[in-house]
């Protein structure tokens, strides 16, 4: 009974976070703030669903930890994807002149002349 309540709670949390992620993707108004919602909230939501699945399989007696692989893979790759999409926004969406000036002699890493894509 207690384990049922726990699984239900984690499932509803996961569903809520996935919904928040996609709703934020639709609702937020600038490209860079749109990047926040799916990369964080949706990843957390899918992680919650996987956690609920793990607990359910252990409660039914045939426990397995396959799902941890999917969780770990998602949690590792989501920031990399987010970084790439942020770079796309920086290079294609807005120019160098819109950015605040970096301190001292520094340059923005993504505009470093050594790896300038343009």
């Amino acid at each position, binding site marked *: 009974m207690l384990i049922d309540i726990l699984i239900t709670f984690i499932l509803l949390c996961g569903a809520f976070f996935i919904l928040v992620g996609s709703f934020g993707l*639709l609702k937020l108004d600038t490209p860079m703030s749109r*990047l926040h919602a799916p990369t964080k909230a949706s990843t957390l939501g899918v992680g919650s*669903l996987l956690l609920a699945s793990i607990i*359910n399989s252990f409660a039914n007696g045939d426990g397995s930890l396959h799902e941890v692989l*999917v969780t770990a893979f998602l949690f590792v790759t989501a920031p990399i994807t987010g970084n790439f999409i942020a770079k796309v*926004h920086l290079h294609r969406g807005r120019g160098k002149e819109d950015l605040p000036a970096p301190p001292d002699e520094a340059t923005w890493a993504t505009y470093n002349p050594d790896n300038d894509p343009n």
Partner: protein
Amino acid sequence: MIDFALYVAFGAVGLSQLLAMVRLIRGPHIGDRILSLDTMVVNAIGVIILIGFAWGTQMYFESAMIIAMLGFVSSVALARFVLRGDIIE
């Protein structure tokens, strides 16, 4: 009780797939389109996990893993292509 939570979760994930699709169609900028495709892949993984949960089988986790890998590689490839005009240099 778990059945109810499963129905709610299926509804929420399906609705979020629709919302991401609206952003995919509207998206003013190419980065938004790549981002919404990535979100749709994450939501698809969620649906597959929920189906495996509802039917009580372990068989769907391999497909979830494969879709996770394909989604990551395709998002990075799209972003690289937009950034540099080439995927592997």
